[in-house]
């Protein structure tokens, strides 16, 4: 057999060996198939249509007139709010908020209607509990709109009485008006905002861990020499034989989240499928490469896995997809560039939301490629570890 064929068949042997290992240990099936799918299912069903509906709120209506009841009925009709309880006084409503029964409440003091009708400017208040930030900001929006509308309704009556026409009324009530355009996510859908990064981030974390486990567990089992021999002593061939079968599974799992996000939920994908598919493929490859790099750096299963875990979990906040990176303290802003997820997120914003030409994301792609080259730094260290290290514990 000529050496090329020999090498090829060595690679095939290692790949076959890896497939058998993956099938024989439940941890692989669990982490590569079950966990990602459960995760996808979890986040997308949790957030469903993307906006919480009928958030429970309370009311303290000390005035209790036909007018205030009408205002409150209108508030209840907002999709996102549901008045679940009327409280006799402020203290009771505050307690209900502390108990978590309601996320916000309206306070209408006694005499509000009377003062309003006699043009004496009464004041109503609304309280939210931003310890639950999402619920509180949505409630703030509804309650503020309601307050403006209630105010406007009374002013409108005044204007009609003065003989203003319909089209002039709004010009008088609200001379300057804001018109908001949320680029790429006009409905302010939270699932679009979060799931688009949460799903790939979870997959990335699992890839880190499985890659490291699959390499260093060989040492632990005392099988690493056998593995290297099978690859004719070439570390690249040994790694390729191990990681290619895994890559196939990861690509299927990556495709699965793209199907869930962009086909089933029909989330915005302005750039079309391919730029994001490329982005996802790069993230998968980088995650594998990063796992290999950690194995090279830390020749112990336990340590490599611990560091990968910490790095992976930290990726979620530091990629800046929920709390933006520009608001981090400067040292962490710098640190964020060491996390591959950050580049995936930036490309996602450029491509899927803002529909930029592909070349605009070149810097992100380049960064991911640089991460991918990391394992080339210390291959011999890993080889030595595989051939010589004795698992001591």
């Amino acid at each position, binding site marked *: 057999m000529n050496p090329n064929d020999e090498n090829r068949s060595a690679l095939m042997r290692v790949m076959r060996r890896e497939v058998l290992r993956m099938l024989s240990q439940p941890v692989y099936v669990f982490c590569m198939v079950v966990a990602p799918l459960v995760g996808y299912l979890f986040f997308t069903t949790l957030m469903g249509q993307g906006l919480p509906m009928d958030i429970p709120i309370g009311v303290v209506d000390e005035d209790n007139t036909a007018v205030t009841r009408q205002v409150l009925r209108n508030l209840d009709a907002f999709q996102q709010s549901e008045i679940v309880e009327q409280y006799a006084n402020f203290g009771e409503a505050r307690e209900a908020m502390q108990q978590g029964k309601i996320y916000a409440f309206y306070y209408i003091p006694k005499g509000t209607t009377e003062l*309003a009708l006699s043009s004496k400017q009464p004041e109503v208040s609304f309280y939210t509990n931003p310890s639950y930030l999402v619920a509180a900001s949505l409630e703030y929006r509804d309650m503020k709109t309601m307050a403006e509308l209630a105010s406007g309704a009374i002013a409108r009556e005044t204007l009609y009485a003065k003989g203003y026409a319909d089209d002039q009324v709004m010009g008088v009530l609200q001379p300057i008006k804001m018109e908001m355009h949320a680029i790429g996510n006009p409905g302010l859908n939270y699932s679009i905002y979060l799931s688009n990064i949460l799903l790939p981030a979870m997959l990335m974390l699992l890839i880190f861990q499985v890659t490291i486990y699959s390499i260093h567990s060989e040492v632990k089992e005392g099988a690493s020499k056998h593995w290297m021999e099978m690859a004719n002593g070439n570390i690249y061939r040994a790694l390729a034989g191990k990681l290619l079968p895994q890559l196939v599974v990861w690509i299927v799992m990556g495709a699965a989240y793209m199907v869930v996000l962009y086909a089933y939920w029909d989330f915005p994908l302005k750039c079309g499928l391919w730029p994001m598919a490329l982005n996802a493929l790069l993230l998968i490859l980088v995650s594998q490469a990063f796992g290999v790099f950690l194995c090279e750096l830390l020749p112990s299963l336990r340590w490599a896995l611990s560091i990968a875990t910490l790095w992976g979990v930290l990726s979620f906040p530091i990629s800046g997809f929920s709390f933006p990176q520009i608001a981090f303290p400067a040292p962490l802003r710098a640190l964020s560039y060491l996390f591959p997820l950050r580049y995936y997120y930036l490309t996602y914003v450029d491509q899927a939301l803002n529909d930029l030409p592909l070349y605009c994301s070149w810097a992100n792609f380049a960064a991911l490629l640089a991460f991918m080259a990391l394992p080339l730094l210390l291959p011999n260290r890993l080889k030595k570890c595989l051939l010589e290290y004795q698992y001591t514990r």
Partner: protein
Amino acid sequence: MKWLHNILEVFREELHNSIFDEGVIVFFFIVPLLYPLLYAYLYSNETVREVATVAVDNANSATSREFLRKVDASPDVDIVGHCADMQEAVNLVHKHKAYCLIYIPSEFDNALMSGQQAVVELYSDMGSMLYYKAVLSSCTEVSLAMNKDIKAQRLVGATDKQVSTFNHPIEYEYVPMFNTQSGFATFLIPAVLVLLIQQTMVLGVGMMAGEEREKKRRGILEPHVLDKTPAEMLLGKALTFFALYAVVAAYVFCVVPRLFHLIQIGQWQDMVAFLFPYLLACIFFSLTLSGIAHNREVFIIMFVFVSVPLLFISGISWPSCSIPHFWKVVSWLFPSTFGINGFVKINNTGALLRDVRPELIGLWIQTAFYAFTAWLVYYRSYGKHLKDSIEVAEEKLQARWAEYL
């Protein structure tokens, strides 16, 4: 008092095991020490200020310039550039030199003069909801203020009081309670701290159990386990983890919030009375789960990925009223769900112990339930079962010796 002596012996052994195992040290001490610092530091600005914004002012009038000047002066928006046309402005947004765009069309002044509504268009990059929130709320505030003045001019001959009444027949006031600047750290950090306790404990305890099983498979059995009942083993270990985590919890819940000036308005007695069952529930939950830890590392991989879902399922970020029923039931399996909710209520909103009764009851039920399941796990591995199998093995060995001789 043989049993007490036995429990203390297990306690001593386990304390020794956990303090001298570097892998366990990582999860029991290093992660709880560093993670809260990192997270709290990350969110220490609480909210995003001075979001870079570009403006296209096609009206270029005194009013439009006044509007932009006032928006620029507001704390959340920073106008970094004025562009001649939309194309130029959009380019800046695409290059991430700016995240929002304010467009004032040329009809702006005509509309104002003729008594129509003048429209200002706002565009926001949706890479983060906070950009959107910053530009919309700042511009709205400015427009409301300017509207007042414009209306005053339009209601010719009206007194100041009449104008004000006309503007707002009903005044309103907005009060965010407990997290007064609607900050991210105040909202997220307490939940992360509570979750961290459960997650690190599960990982550390699972690692130790995996270690023990690995040893057992290699025929190494700790000598001290043989004369103990499963209940003694269980209580001894529980005591160990409680002692360790009492220290961890004191750091996480007392020192960290103080370091970063996070809100903490609960009564300390309530806090202690609530965290006590939380620690117990976590301990027995961890000991139960450790029943499936067959080796040190597999357990880590299988459990870490649930951390983020657990944060979401607790109802702290996605409101619990909108969590589908199925996931809600799933969430009751984890001590973190009750732990996060109860702790946030006490710590952030100053709720009293009676206000968190549902969570408290949930935690005690979990403690009882997981103590029972943990006992089952220990009964299987240390109880009659094990001793029988050791006896069987010894008999076999002797039989073989007999054969050999």
